[in-house]
Structures are given as structure tokens and as C-alpha cells.
């Protein structure tokens, strides 16, 4: 009798929260991990017999031109990373010293160039740097030059364009780390007798190093797979690895060799990540703060301390320029204005060109008209590309937010030993150079018949956007108080009700921004589109890319303006929602 009173234990197997990550894992396994593995195998497979061979790698070793391309790629990627971090550091420092409300507004000035399409930025630099471009015209008009200075189709042009493209990423990576540094530490150092140099080099700088390293890593890896800037602003001598891969696939149809080059690129990226992880831990990149950075007591640390002490001594003579607290701010103001101008002003050069009455990119325009917008709006090619981009971006936003958000939820709720691996997988599409993902995807989709389909594009873009959604939703989940769920349960709410009435409303800001970021990621995406969208099924960035190769015309400026305004609008919306 007494047994019947006991509540039977529910027999149903309850799925652990880790299962929420399964859809995202499945997508990434099929369309990311598998094609990458395929690509690697292609590089060591004999095309005819299918057996193993080192023939493709031998070709790489015996062809000096590829060696020089590798060298150029590394050189440009390293220079870009160094300049982006070096020039971006004081800007990030300046932002981090503001009150948070002001910082949110000023950071928009960095977010704007960050989210502006690489194509638009490159197009703007072409208008600026050309022999008869804005800068040369300006310099000659004021008598600074009597002959145009060559600023394009050489390394200078590529580095300017690349640093301009990468610096926002560097700043936005360093900023959270700097914001996390306790401001009182430098004050405390001051009370112990440290001057400005010592306060910076012995206290502040070492604490900001995880951010610096993360920024260096991300800009280096992204630059490694870059092709837009060198394609338009570089000359023959600046051909980078990614361009070579595109040529191998699209023109020479040499899959095996493309696979070899792609594998090399991945190895280079992985080595960089390994080095980084060894010293700093990966959590800094995902915004987890630098809690895993207990420095060891090794010789490296001692050497680092020596260097910092030397830096402090070297910069000490400059301390006397401003010792009063207020003076720091005054002397510090010119630099950020200069850097922000460098980041933003070039982009705006497309505005006057878009409204020009001439059919050249002449600057300043001889007159103004709306004819190029008219041209854009009446061109069936441009219009269908625009519509396709919108559709694909909507679908991508939906899928990436759901998949990435569920994966973030899974990791927030589960203590499984798989967490680390899933975390790494979710971020992987952001870290592996896009060109490699795109080539791998192209190979697979060609076999599945998904090339030149919207489905193919949406799948490709979704896997690229998942990391952003995963991080954005993960960030709001971090501050979510799970005791609210227990509270709701004690008040009688079921699981679904809790999700609908408590969890989702509180996460809404994060989820909507995730969707907006995914939308912009897809709307701006070129690399996958170059391979997957073919013929009539082209997207807006792909159409711009093709047009920029054919001939520069003011229609491109008009399209750029439309794209920029749209992205700006979405960005502002995301900013507002996140508050």
C-alpha cells in the first residue's frame, strides 16, 4: 500500500542540454569539417589512381614562384598585423578611458568602418590613391607634388588598404581587454612612486598584452587569406596566396595544387593560434577576459620584464611634458582624431562620386546628378543581385541565430567534457581563412549540385555567421541569472513557459543583435559567393567584384552608398537594442 504513495521516478530519458548544440555541430561537420578534410586529402592524392602521393607538394617545393608568393603573403600579413595593432593601440586606449556611455557612441566610429564592406573600402581607396586620384590631384593642386606619386599597384597601396581594413578589428579586440583593466592599478602604482612611464610600461601595458596578442593573431590570420585588397590595390609583385588559390581553382582547375596551398594556409593559421594559445589561452578572443593568464616564472617572463623596464627608462624623459592629471588628456587628443579620420574619411569619398554628373570617377565631380542611382535601380542585373543578397541574408540570419544561439545555450547549461571541443568547433569558421572554407565548400557543392543555388549560398553563409551568433548570444547568456528559472519553476511555470516568458525576453537584445550581425555578415560576403554563386545567381558583392574588374564606374559608388547606408542602419539598430 505504502508504495503506491511514492512518486514514481519519471521513466523518460531527459535529453541533456548538450543536445541543443547538435544541429550546429551537424551543419559544421558536413559543410565545414568534411570539406576541409577532403581538401587536405586532395593535396596528397594522385588524381588518376587515387593513391597517396607527394607529387603536389614536390611541385610546390620546386617552383620558386610559389615560394615568393608564400613569402609575400607572410610579409604582408605580418606588416598588416603589426601596423594595425601599433596604430590601433592608442586609439583603443583612448576609447577605454571614456565613460561607458560616451564610449558606446565613440566606438560607433570604429564599428562603422569595421562593418563596411571590404569591397567598398577598397573601391574608396582606388578613388583616393590612383595616379589621377583624389590625393594626387589634391597634392598637385596645392603644389606639394609636381608629378603624381605612385601609391597604388604597389606594396604601399596594399599595406594602406590592408591596415585600413584590419585596424577596426584590432581596436575592437583590444578594447574589451583594456576596459577590463582595473583603473586603480595605475593609480596605486602612482602612490608607490611610479611616474607616467613606469605606470604604463610596468603596470598597464603588461595587463593589456593579452588584448594586443589577440588583436595581432586575428588580424594576421584574416590578412593571410585576404585577396580583395591586393587584387585591386597591389601590383604583380603583391599577389597573395588567396589570389593564387582562386586562380588555381577557377582558371587552371588544378584542385590538387589548390588543396596544397589551402592546407599550407591552414597550417600557418593553426601554428599562429597554437603559439597564441600557449601563452594567452583562447578565452580572450571570445571575450572571456584574461582570467587564464597566470604568467609562469619562466625565462620568457624575466626577459619580458627586462624589456618593459628598459622601455620605462627610455620613455621617462618624455614624462615631464605633462605631469598634471588634466594635461594627459589634452596632449592625447590629436592622435585619435587623426586615426578616426584615417578610418572613416576614405569611405565617405564614395558619396560625392555616387552623385557625380560625369561618367568618370573625377574628383571633385564637375556637377551633381542622380543618374547613377537611376542606372542602378533600372539595371536588372544589379536589382536581381540586390534581391538575392537580401533573401540569402534573411535566411542566413534566421538559421545562424537559431543554430548558434542553441549551441551557446547548450554550452552555458552543460558541464560536459565535450564543451571545450564544441566551443572550438563553433569558433573555427571564424578562425580558418575564409578562402579555404570557400574552396572546400565549392568542391563539395559541385558534387552535390548545389553550386549556383540559393541553398548553397545560405548554407555557406550560415556556417560563416555561426561564430558571431554563438559569441553574441553566449555573451548575454553569461550575464543571465539562471536562478530566475528556478524562481519561475517554484512559481509553477513549465519549461516552455519559462523559455517564452522569462529567458527569451531577457536575452532578446542579444538574440536580435546576433541576427543583425549574421545578416550583415551574409550581405557583405564575397569569398564564398565568388565560388558558389555563379552565372545569373549572383549576389551584390559578387556583382561589385566583377564590375570592379571590368571597369570602375560611378554606378559602383552608388551601390556602395546604398550598401553602406543599409549596414549603418542595421548597426545603429543593433546598438540601440543591445542597451
Amino acid at each position, binding site marked *: 500500500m505504502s508504495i503506491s504513495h511514492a512518486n514514481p521516478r519519471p521513466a523518460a530519458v531527459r535529453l541533456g542540454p548538450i543536445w541543443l548544440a547538435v544541429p550546429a555541430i551537424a551543419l559544421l561537420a558536413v559543410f565545414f569539417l568534411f570539406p576541409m578534410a577532403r581538401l587536405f586529402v586532395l593535396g596528397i592524392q594522385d588524381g588518376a589512381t587515387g593513391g597517396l602521393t607527394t607529387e603536389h607538394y614536390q611541385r610546390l617545393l620546386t617552383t620558386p614562384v610559389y615560394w615568393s608568393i608564400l613569402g609575400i603573403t607572410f610579409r604582408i600579413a605580418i606588416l598588416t598585423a603589426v601596423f594595425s595593432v601599433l596604430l590601433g593601440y592608442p586609439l583603443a586606449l583612448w576609447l577605454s578611458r571614456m565613460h561607458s556611455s560616451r564610449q558606446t557612441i565613440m566606438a560607433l566610429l570604429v564599428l562603422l568602418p569595421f562593418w563596411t564592406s571590404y569591397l567598398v573600402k577598397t573601391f574608396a581607396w582606388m578613388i583616393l590613391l590612383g595616379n589621377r586620384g583624389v590625393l594626387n590631384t589634391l597634392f598637385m593642386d596645392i603644389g606639394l607634388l609636381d608629378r603624381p606619386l605612385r601609391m597604388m599597384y604597389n606594396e604601399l597601396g596594399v599595406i594602406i588598404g590592408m591596415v585600413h581594413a584590419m585596424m577596426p578589428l584590432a581596436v575592437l579586440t583590444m578594447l574589451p581587454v583594456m576596459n577590463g583593466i*582595473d583603473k*586603480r*592599478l595605475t*593609480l*596605486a*602604482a*602612482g*602612490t*608607490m*612612486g*611610479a*611616474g607616467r612611464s*613606469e*605606470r604604463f610600461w*610596468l*603596470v598597464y601595458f*603588461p*595587463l593589456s598584452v593579452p588584448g594586443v596578442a589577440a588583436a595581432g593573431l586575428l588580424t594576421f590570420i584574416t590578412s593571410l587569406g585576404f585577396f580583395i585588397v591586393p587584387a585591386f590595390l597591389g601590383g604583380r609583385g603583391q599577389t597573395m596566396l588567396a589570389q593564387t588559390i582562386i586562380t588555381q581553382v577557377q582558371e587552371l582547375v588544378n584542385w590538387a595544387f589548390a588543396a596544397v596551398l589551402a592546407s599550407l594556409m591552414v597550417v600557418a593559421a593553426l601554428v599562429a593560434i597554437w603559439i597564441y594559445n600557449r601563452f594567452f589561452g583562447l578565452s580572450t578572443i571570445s571575450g572571456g577576459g584574461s582570467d587564464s*593568464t*597566470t*604568467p609562469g*616564472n619562466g625565462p620568457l617572463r624575466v626577459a619580458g620584464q627586462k624589456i618593459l623596464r628598459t622601455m620605462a627608462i627610455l620613455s621617462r624623459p618624455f614624462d615631464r611634458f605633462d*605631469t*598634471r*592629471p*588634466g594635461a594627459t588628456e589634452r596632449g592625447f587628443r590629436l592622435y585619435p582624431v587623426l586615426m578616426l579620420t584615417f578610418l572613416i574619411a576614405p569611405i565617405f569619398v564614395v558619396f560625392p562620386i555616387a552623385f557625380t554628373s560625369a561618367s568618370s570617377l573625377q574628383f571633385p565631380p564637375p556637377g551633381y546628378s542622380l543618374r547613377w542611382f537611376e542606372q542602378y535601380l533600372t539595371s536588372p542585373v544589379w536589382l536581381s543581385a540586390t534581391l538575392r543578397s537580401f533573401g540569402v541574408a534573411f535566411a542566413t540570419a534566421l538559421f545562424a541565430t537559431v543554430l548558434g544561439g542553441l549551441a551557446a545555450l547548450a554550452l552555458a547549461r552543460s558541464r560536459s567534457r565535450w564543451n571545450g571541443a564544441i566551443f572550438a568547433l563553433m569558433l573555427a569558421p571564424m578562425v580558418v581563412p575564409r578562402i579555404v572554407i570557400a574552396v572546400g565548400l565549392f568542391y563539395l557543392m559541385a558534387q552535390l549540385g548545389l553550386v549556383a543555388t540559393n541553398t548553397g549560398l545560405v548554407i555557406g553563409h550560415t556556417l560563416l555567421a555561426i561564430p558571431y551568433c554563438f559569441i553574441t548570444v553566449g555573451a548575454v547568456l553569461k550575464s543571465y541569472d539562471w536562478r530566475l528559472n528556478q524562481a519561475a519553476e517554484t512559481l509553477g511555470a513549465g519549461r516552455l513557459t519559462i523559455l517564452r516568458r522569462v529567458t527569451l525576453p531577457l536575452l532578446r537584445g542579444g538574440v536580435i543583435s546576433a541576427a543583425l550581425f549574421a545578416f550583415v555578415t551574409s550581405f557583405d560576403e564575397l569569398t564564398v559567393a565568388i565560388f558558389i554563386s555563379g552565372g545569373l545567381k549572383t549576389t551584390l558583392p559578387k556583382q561589385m567584384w566583377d564590375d570592379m574588374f571590368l571597369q570602375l564606374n560611378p554606378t559602383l559608388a552608388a551601390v556602395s552608398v546604398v550598401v553602406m547606408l543599409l549596414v549603418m542602419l542595421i548597426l545603429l539598430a543593433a546598438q540601440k537594442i543591445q542597451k
Partner: protein
Amino acid sequence: MTADQQQAKLVLEGLSKQYGNFTALEPTSLTVRNGEFLTLLGPSGSGKTTLLQMVAGLAEPSAGRLLVDGADWTYRPVNERGMGMVFQHYALFPHMTVAENVAFPLQMRKLSAAEVRSRIEETLRKVQLEKFSHRFPKELSGGQQQRVALARCFVFNPNVILMDEPLGALDKALREHMQLEIRRLHKEYATTVIYVTHDQEEALVMSDRICVMNHARVEQLGSPHQIYANPETLFAATFIGHSNVLKGKRDGSDGEFARVRTAGGTFCGRDMSRNQAGEVALVVRPEHMRIGETTSAEFDSVRGRLTDLVYVGVETRLLVALPDDSILTLRHDAAGEIPSIGQEIVTHWPKAAARVVA
């Protein structure tokens, strides 16, 4: 030079701080004596940190002067003041070990490596941390971190030490232990200490003198005993220790006493108020109030009704409601019988123990 000036370590002359239109500290004048332990005591937002930071050189005063040993230090850079400071959450450098943290101020003073080593060893021994010198701050408990902060401050023997709620993050037992430890270090190093807290008990235990602050102003400055026995303002009377308050209006004087007319009657007390405000309060410490009637002219008495009994271990407290609904707290002497709730109670106190404050 007067004796007071001679022993003055720090002199604040009308020091004030504005943030835009907001006044964080009204013009404040105050002398800190050489070697004393002075506590700034007040509720959160009363301007204690602001005052401390201007002394340290971490904030620039809006007006006024700061003199140290007679020299004007108002605008002296923070790193040239040589004052020690202990921050509220310690502000230990997370990228340095305990030993490196403690070595930092010595290295800034360019001491030889050998001397740095021996000073670290000695200081860490004094705070019982010699075994932890190679740990990083986050590998230590809160109490240990607190001791590192103290060591890092005392190690360079500063002649002024500023502490901003250094024990705020510790639990009660540890806090009481550290209070005694800080007093011991203060004596041992014979430095001048300005200590900030919002905990009145802590202030009473530690200080030579207490500076009571409220609403960006100094309310009263004096020894713990002076402030407890002779509060000059209603705020000081109620913030430090418990006071029974009878609000009323000034009603002339009675010999040495001032008279206050309240809802429960007219009472006498020693006038401590610095102005002649009409609205005043008579305050009496619970330990001066006795239960029972008296006819002696040296006492005042009031009638009320017992509303509650509170047992707090060492004693039982009686809460008595007066006709105007104000509540008095009385202590029950161990001997007498405990009255029952609702009963009418008469209490009396010596007029000499009552204070009139504004």
C-alpha cells in the same frame, strides 16, 4: 610657531572638490597630527574617498590648499608625494607575484637588489606571508590579499599612509583581527595614518581621532570618547553608538542647561549645537536611562508604553513608545523583573547626561 602647528603633519585649508555642478566635498579645513591615527567616518557618498584622493594626489582639488610639513603640496604629482595608500579592493597587480608586488615601491625608489630582497623578506614576515612570496594575488584568500596590500604599503616606510575602507571586503571575524593588526603596524612603523571607513565600531576601535563626515562636510572632529560622549550634531549622535532622540524646539535655558520643549514634555540638556537653530533634539544614550520614577531635580523623566523586548545576548532591550510615537531604547538591568508588553513605563536620566544638538 604654536605647539599645534609644530605637530601638524598635514594641514587642509578649505580644500574642496566639485564635479561639474556637483559638490563632492565642501571646503574643508582640518589638521592631521604627526603620528596619529585619524579616521574619516561617514556613510557612503559623504566625500571620504574624495578627501583621501586629494591628499594622495589622485584627484585635483577645485579650491583650497594642502600643506605637508608646512610646504604647499596641493598640486604635487602623486608619485612624488611618497605617501602609502591601501585601496578598497587592494589594487594588487595581478601580473606580479606577492614578492614583486611588495618590491614595486622599492624598485621605484631605485633601492639595490639586495636591499629590496631583505626588505621584502622582513615585511612579509611581519604580515606572516613569507611562505607565499611566489604566489600570484588570485591564488590567495581575501585576508591574505589584504595583508599583501598592507605589506606593499608599509614596506617603503611612508610617513603618511592613506587607507580607503581596506577591510570592507572581509568577513566580521577577519575584519576584527585585521583591525588589531593594522593598529600594531601603525605603532611599529610610527607613521601618520588617515583611515576611511563607514563602520562606526571600526572607527571607535582603531582611531586616535575620528572625523565624522556627512553630506560632503565634516560634522565633528574629536577623539572617539569626545564624539561618543559629546556629539555636536544629531547625525554624529545617531551615527556613532545608539542615541535616544527627543525632537523639539528650543525653550530658553535653565542655569547651565538648555531647555527643549518636546511632545512628551520639556527637558534639559547640555547645549552642544554650534548654531542657535530653533529646531533641536535632545539626545540621551541608552545606558544613562533608568526605569522608574524619580523626583530629584537633577533628573528628567518621561512616560511611555512598552512595545517590544529585544534579546541581544548581553542584555535585553526595551522598546518604549512615547505619546508622539517616537521610540526609546532602554537597557534592562539584570537585577530587575522584566516588565510585560503593553505595560506603562517611566524612565529617567540625569540632565547632565543629555545633550542638545541641532
